[in-house]
């Protein structure tokens, strides 16, 4: 075991982690621990753009953006946080441009902007051009630009280091972050990083679904690490299903395709979104569009022999426009489906895309131990966190914005905190949990296979807690997850070695997914209403009286070692906007 000491440790090197690192490296001795190489993270898969009311091409302002974000999140958004997001969006985009990001340009040479779902002029009057973009590769450009600037700033990376545990020490009755424990993939060695500040920026947990746009590596490692240490997870029942994933594969096809004029059609060729969202049509918010697609499919108007998908039609758009604005997604259709989007519509279905919930933080990125108390020295930003700027449903282009605004804020806050404090003493035998976990898996002779349990988990999640949910389906999922957690105790790995043991890491990742799937299902079961991405067929209406509040899920361990989930609730911060019925 090796012990390292840094002022600030950042877990994850995607957009939020690297944006934080650029700030914290200037201010404090910083290490970035990442389970992948920095440019491999899933920020790079984001396509359509980053929202900011620059008003480069038409009238716009941050207040409209705030409203759209609050409405898009079905009023579960903390409105103070949404206002910060929308205001600081403008400087965030300009920061990236100054760092070198190659945005598409208007004829005047300013940053070009395009339409995106849920973003509107003057509180819902009509779609507005607010998304700043670089073709359909905006996430790629953000990731590359941030990495380039990390190279410039000399950010210190520990590549292929998996953080498996959060260290917490109680000082005078206050739980403080003491550091993290990481596993080095190349050698199998354990590393303890003692740090004054720790920032989690480790991304989402979509891999518990089968049809998902998420990378294989999005397994909620950060959420699981803090949850196991008794810290809460917020709003985990809210998961976004992006309307346009490639049929059966789940690969994302950007909403920018509809922003450029693409149309969703059922088997009769009907533009069905006109029925569900007369004003915004195909550009209604994602939860609305995904439910509409499944309604079409359920009512027998789906396409294909099994009627299990609909079409994204781009055939009426000029090929030059597709080449210039949507080059990557049209190539995906050619590569993976053998379809020519100039002439043929693309089969799509909703795909599990984004976790609105996560580790609760305040607007400085400080992690909360309960509804109000912060954990000194612990921060989170990006998809791993829940500020909450996305509420019950995130607007497209607000995630690339989130990672930049709150990545920067967390990086500054964490580094500044590190200057004001001493190192917190490490707990006794800080590596013991991780060593035990690894040795148990490596030496297990159990008969269960990781891939089999993961497949069953993904199937039950797709079948029971996707776009439509009922008490019965969620209970089915809860029972299945409990069974799988029991069987997980009996898994073994074939690779017993120390060198690049990805077999072992997949087993650990599965454990994280099982923990988080259980939190999600239990949170969803208790929320007896429909709001944003959480739709209960048995409770189809929003219930502001009983449920306009955030879910806070805690892991409880009984005296006999038994585990359970305790749910609590946190009020929503409301400033300017009273809840209204949500129409698009």
């Amino acid at each position, binding site marked *: 075991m090796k012990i390292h000491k840094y002022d600030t440790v950042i877990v994850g090197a995607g957009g939020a982690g690297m944006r934080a690192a650029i700030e914290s490296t200037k201010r404090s001795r910083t290490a970035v621990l990442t389970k992948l190489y920095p440019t491999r993270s899933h920020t790079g898969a984001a396509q359509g753009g980053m929202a900011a009311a620059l008003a480069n091409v038409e009238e716009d302002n941050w207040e409209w953006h705030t409203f759209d974000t609050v409405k898009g999140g079905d009023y579960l958004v903390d409105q103070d946080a949404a206002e910060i997001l929308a205001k600081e969006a403008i400087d965030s985009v300009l920061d990236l441009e100054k760092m070198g990001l190659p945005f598409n340009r208007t004829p005047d040479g*300013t940053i070009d902007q395009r339409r995106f779902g849920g973003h509107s002029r003057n509180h819902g009057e009509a779609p507005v051009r607010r998304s700043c973009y670089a073709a359909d590769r905006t996430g790629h450009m953000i990731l590359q630009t941030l990495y380039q600037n990390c190279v410039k700033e000399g950010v210190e990376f520990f590549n292929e280091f998996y953080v498996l545990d959060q260290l917490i020490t109680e000082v005078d009755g206050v739980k403080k972050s003491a550091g993290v424990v990481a596993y080095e993939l190349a050698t199998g060695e354990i590393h303890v990083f003692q740090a004054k500040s720790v920032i989690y920026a480790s991304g989402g947990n979509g891999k518990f679904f089968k049809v998902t746009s998420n990378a294989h590596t999005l397994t909620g490692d950060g959420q699981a690490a803090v949850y196991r240490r008794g810290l809460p997870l917020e709003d985990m029942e809210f998961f976004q299903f992006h309307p346009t994933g490639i049929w059966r594969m789940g690969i994302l096809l950007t909403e920018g395709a509809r922003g450029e004029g693409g149309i969703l059609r059922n088997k009769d060729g009907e533009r069905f979104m006109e029925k569900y969202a007369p004003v915004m049509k195909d550009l209604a918010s994602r939860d609305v569009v995904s439910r509409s697609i499944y309604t079409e499919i359920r009512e027998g108007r789906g396409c294909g022999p099994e009627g299990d998908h609909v079409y994204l039609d781009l055939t009426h758009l000029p090929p030059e426009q597709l080449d210039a604005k949507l080059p990557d997604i049209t190539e995906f259709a050619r590569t993976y489906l053998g379809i020519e989007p100039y002439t043929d519509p693309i089969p799509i279905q909703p795909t599990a895309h984004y976790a609105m919930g996560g580790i609760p933080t305040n607007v400085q990125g400080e992690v909360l131990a309960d509804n109000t108390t912060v954990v000194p020295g612990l921060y989170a930003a990006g998809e791993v966190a829940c500020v909450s700027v996305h509420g019950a449903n995130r607007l497209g282009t607000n995630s690339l914005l989130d990672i930049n605004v709150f990545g920067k804020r967390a990086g500054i806050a964490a580094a500044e905190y590190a200057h004001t404090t001493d190192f917190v003493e490490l707990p006794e035998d800080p590596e013991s949990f991780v060593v035990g976990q690894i040795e148990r898996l490596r030496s297990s002779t159990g008969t269960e296979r*990781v891939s089999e349990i993961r497949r069953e988990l993904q199937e039950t999640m797709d079948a029971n807690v996707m776009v439509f949910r009922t008490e019965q389906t969620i209970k089915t999922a809860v029972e299945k997850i409990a069974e799988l957690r029991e069987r997980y105790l009996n898994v073994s790995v074939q*690779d017993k070695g120390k060198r*690049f043991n990805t*077999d072992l890491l997949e087993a650990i990742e599965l454990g994280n997914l099982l923990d988080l799937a259980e939190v999600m299902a239990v949170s969803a079961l208790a929320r007896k209403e429909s709001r944003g991405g959480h739709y209960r067929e048995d409770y189809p209406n929003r219930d502001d009286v009983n449920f306009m509040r955030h879910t806070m899920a805690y892991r409880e361990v009984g005296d006999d070692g038994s585990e359970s989930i305790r749910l609590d609730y946190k009020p929503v911060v409301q400033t300017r906007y009273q809840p209204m019925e949500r129409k698009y």
Partner: protein
Amino acid sequence: MATPVMDKADATGSPEPGFGDSPYITATFRIRRFNPEVSAEATWEDFQIEIDPKERVLDALHKIKWELDGTLTFRRSCAHGICGSDAMRINGKNRLACKTLIKDLNPEKPITVEAIKGLTVLKDLIVDMEPFFQAYRDVMPFLITKETNEPTRERLQSAEDRERFDDTTKCILCAACTSSCPVFWNDGQYFGPAAIVNAHRFIFDSRDEAGEQRLEVLNDRDGVWRCRTTFNCTDACPRGIEVTKAIAEVKRALITRRF
């Protein structure tokens, strides 16, 4: 050599029946294995699997790892050609495993899969990427401006100026190009095509003011002049970047000092 064969009854999970009408086929994957914890020698190992030929090579590798041999080791993440983790040599050609469909590989014959060349193999399909990223860092891959007074708003750039370097912004640092380059294989000192592509991305960006510095780096004896214009890099690039053309533009800029 032993060939683990998967029983059809075991073939659960992917692939999906009904994805198109294509039936499963039996394909043999001949994979270059190396694990110094086990043996100092690398060996070829065959795996036979039942799979839908419309699936990706990455799906086949997962199937082997998840159902036949958990010790098979490779890098991957996004699975659709964006993250750059899974460049490997497939039937003798550098490709991303997640962007290569089995049906396009003549699956009647064994499909060979091995690590990319020119970088030290650490285990199975995993290589040491550090020399590759060092060359990248050496070309100063970030925007450099000399202005002391930053503009309040964005810098202006015409659509034409933006288009000038568009092709080289697509790089995902997968190393497929660099590890396909015979000069790089023979001489580990050469920067390699990926580093030059990333220098090009800034040299031809109208906002950048350090083109001369970057050209001097590439004018080094291990720089751009080592390129023998074999076009392997252009063939290998999974993003369709015209790598050889970008290198030629850098060479021309070195001669004319105009860019």
